């Protein structure tokens, strides 16, 4: 393909993408160096916002919480997603029904799912989970403070994110399983490989690429956790259960908190964190394109 044709074809998309990303990003960078509110010209304050952000213990806690959440959710979803994908792949006629049911939580708006999720645990709204758990355990489950106690709250946040992200992991891995070589599987079986050995030595190595893709998407998406915390973590700031995005929201947008400069500085710091997390993927991508 000629260079002129390439540019002709990519231009509309590039204008849209770069226009709506780079212009706002430029403004975020400028705001991060200013004391500023919406609609007003700011005054330059140098790196003061960065100094404030980095010395605020809230940021450190938010980063730790977000990264911890990402690791837990990703590991859980890759492992359980794999098991589910294998199970679903073995289904015959029931498969479309099971897949359809499992995809519902993924396709529903996350904030809506999180609201429905919060009702299950909130004793002000019936608290059906506590109720059922206490029937099963004969009252030993008690009444955990899902919204005001640090770890129970973390548990329901993680559960909610797993609930809507697990279908995506399962779907991607299931798609990957369609390409696993039947010959290799049969050969392994003839050689007397057990089911576990076949998974570990034949299937998993041949879907490594898909697994890498799932981990990449999970890293991007769970680091940006925001929607779920609105209904599930009303006390996030107090409990140290703020994600980075939630922290920015509270500082720079929510009710009267219009510290836009500080919020922008945190955004820039988050971008740096994400770039560090993405470096292996980016290098890999460049290497592959060179080879191709």
């Amino acid at each position, binding site marked *: 393909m000629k*260079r002129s044709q*390439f540019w002709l074809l*990519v231009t*509309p*998309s*590039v204008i*849209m993408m770069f226009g*709506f*990303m780079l212009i*706002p*990003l430029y403004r975020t960078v400028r705001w991060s160096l200013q004391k500023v509110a*919406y*609609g007003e010209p700011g005054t330059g304050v140098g790196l003061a916002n960065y100094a404030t952000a980095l010395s605020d213990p809230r940021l450190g806690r938010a980063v730790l919480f977000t990264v911890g959440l990402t690791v837990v959710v990703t590991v859980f979803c890759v492992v359980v997603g794999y098991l*589910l994908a294998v*199970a*679903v*792949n*073995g*289904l*015959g*006629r029931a498969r479309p029904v*099971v897949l*359809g*049911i*499992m*995809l*519902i939580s993924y*396709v529903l*708006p996350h*904030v*809506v799912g999180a*609201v*429905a*999720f919060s*009702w*299950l645990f909130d004793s002000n*709204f019936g608290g*059906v989970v506590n*109720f059922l758990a206490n029937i099963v355990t004969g009252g030993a489950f008690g009444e955990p403070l899902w919204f005001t106690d640090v770890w129970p709250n973390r548990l329901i946040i993680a559960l909610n994110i797993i609930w809507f992200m697990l279908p995506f992991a399962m*779907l991607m891995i299931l*798609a990957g399983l*369609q*390409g*696993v070589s*039947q010959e290799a*599987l049969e050969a392994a079986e003839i050689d007397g490989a057990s089911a576990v050995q076949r998974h570990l030595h034949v299937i998993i190595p041949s*879907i*490594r*690429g*898909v697994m890498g893709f799932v981990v990449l998407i999970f890293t991007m998406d769970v*680091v940006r956790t925001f*929607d779920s915390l*609105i209904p599930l973590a009303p006390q996030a700031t107090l409990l140290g259960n703020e994600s*980075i995005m939630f922290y920015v929201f509270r500082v*720079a947008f929510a009710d009267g908190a219009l510290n836009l400069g500080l*919020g922008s500085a945190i955004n820039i710091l988050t971008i740096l964190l994400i770039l560090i997390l*993405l470096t292996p*993927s980016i290098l*890999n*991508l460049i290497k592959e394109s060179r080879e191709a």
Partner: protein
Amino acid sequence: MTVQITPAEGTPAGGALTMGDAITRPSRGSASRRRRPALVLTALFLAATCLIMLFPFIWAALSAAKPTVVAFSNPPVFRFDPTFQPYVNLWQTTNFYLYLGNTLIVAVISTVVALAIGLPCAYALSRYGGVAAIILLVMALIFRALPRFAVVLPMYEISKAIGLYDTTYAMAAALIAINQPFTIWLLRNFFAEIPKELDEAAMVDGCTRLGVLRRVMIPLMGPGILTAGIFVFLFAFQEYLTAAVLTDVNAKTVPVFIATQIGQNLPLLQQASAATVLLTLPVIGIAFIAQKYLVTGLASGAVKG
């Protein structure tokens, strides 16, 4: 990340069902008797997962069907006279239909435009070997990973300054841009599966590049366009953060509406459950239609990492 996954060989679109038990097939016959406990365990695992996945909706639907006084009472009530009052109230006392309309308009506009500008771009990315293509793909990956607020808060100010704040156009435009990286990545992987010799043959026969794209590629891209379209539609339909920042009253979408109902009084909460059910029903339809295409679509192109 590249592991060459053989594209689902000759699988027609929607062939996911026929590929049913590809992996268990070798172990039919005498082996199946020995594997019965494993099969029962698998069935239990899947049934339990399905139940857990569905439970929040079942509960929301029950809350919407209960009389208001017991809708959220503790301990929960399991026997009641079902009512449709919350649905009636939702329709009569709120602008739910308006928000639902906004949500659909934004999702449809952004899907159509994202595909219209994404297809040529993805085609060019899959066929051009220059450095510019790699740079563009890396930039797209970075854009995909950006924290939303870093672009959405400036968009808020800019849209206010130019008078587009709280319009469906601004929402749709923002979502097209935000989802464009995913769109071109996914479509590019699909294009990469189509042999380049086909382009050359068509051009020898006198087709221009654009002609190749329109007459040869797009007809072959059915599963790819469908898969990308489903994802982009869903992303737009789900978006909360962007909508919460860029809309107020006129362009408000359903996710924002439901989120603002929480922390209100009981009748409003019940309307929120009713709204959740109304939103979930079409989504269930989407999930059941989409699953057929997503697995084959993704298997034949997109998940090559």
